């Protein structure tokens, strides 16, 4: 079965500290992987995507994720978080030949001053 697993439901961290949000995927899903961010009272927005090529992908606001095929992981990292990074983060993969995507359950990142 196709699955995307986010290993942490909540991650509290202090401002300017590094953070890692963990995502594992089953080998049966496509190798396209995405991270979305959802700020309070908003819809999901694409944060970054891995389609092919370099296994390290970056977003414009300092997040990065590394596609690791051997560990079937796509963890999201940021070396120094800001209060404004407080949001819910979703890892997802489109299902080939099915027209839909598999989403993880989400990780709530709370950045404290």
């Amino acid at each position, binding site marked *: 079965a196709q699955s995307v697993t986010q290993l942490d439901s909540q991650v509290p961290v202090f401002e300017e500290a590094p953070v890692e949000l963990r995502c594992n995927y089953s080998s049966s899903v*496509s190798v396209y992987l*995405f991270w*979305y961010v959802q700020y309070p009272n908003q*819809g*999901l*927005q694409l944060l970054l995507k891995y389609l092919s090529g370099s296994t390290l992908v970056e977003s414009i606001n300092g997040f990065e994720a590394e596609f690791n095929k051997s560990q079937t992981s796509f963890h999201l990292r940021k070396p120094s978080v800001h209060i404004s990074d407080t949001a819910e983060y*979703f890892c997802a993969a*489109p299902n080939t030949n099915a*027209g839909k*995507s598999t989403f993880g359950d989400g990780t709530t990142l709370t950045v404290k001053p």
Partner: protein
Amino acid sequence: NAGVTQTPKFRVLKTGQSMTLLCAQDMNHEYMYWYRQDPGMGLRLIHYSVGEGTTAKGEVPDGYNVSRLKKQNFLLGLESAAPSQTSVYFCASSGDLQPQHFGDGTRLSIL
């Protein structure tokens, strides 16, 4: 470029009433989706469409119907609203194997 637009943004219904949520996208995407989001439940797919005139059931389709008469529009209907359908509803669209573009959501309360 408006992206994905959901109408209405807020609505309060009484049990048993019906209503339709409208989703419109201007990106010429083939795929469209309706999700509901409840606290602690993540995103749950209600129905989706892989092209104009097609619809398919997601993981929580009961109590909802959908139609995709035009490629750019995807309608979600509640025939007889129930309190358990109180939720935030998100519409999304995408190309094949591409990231989904989400609307801002419809907050629906059923009393």
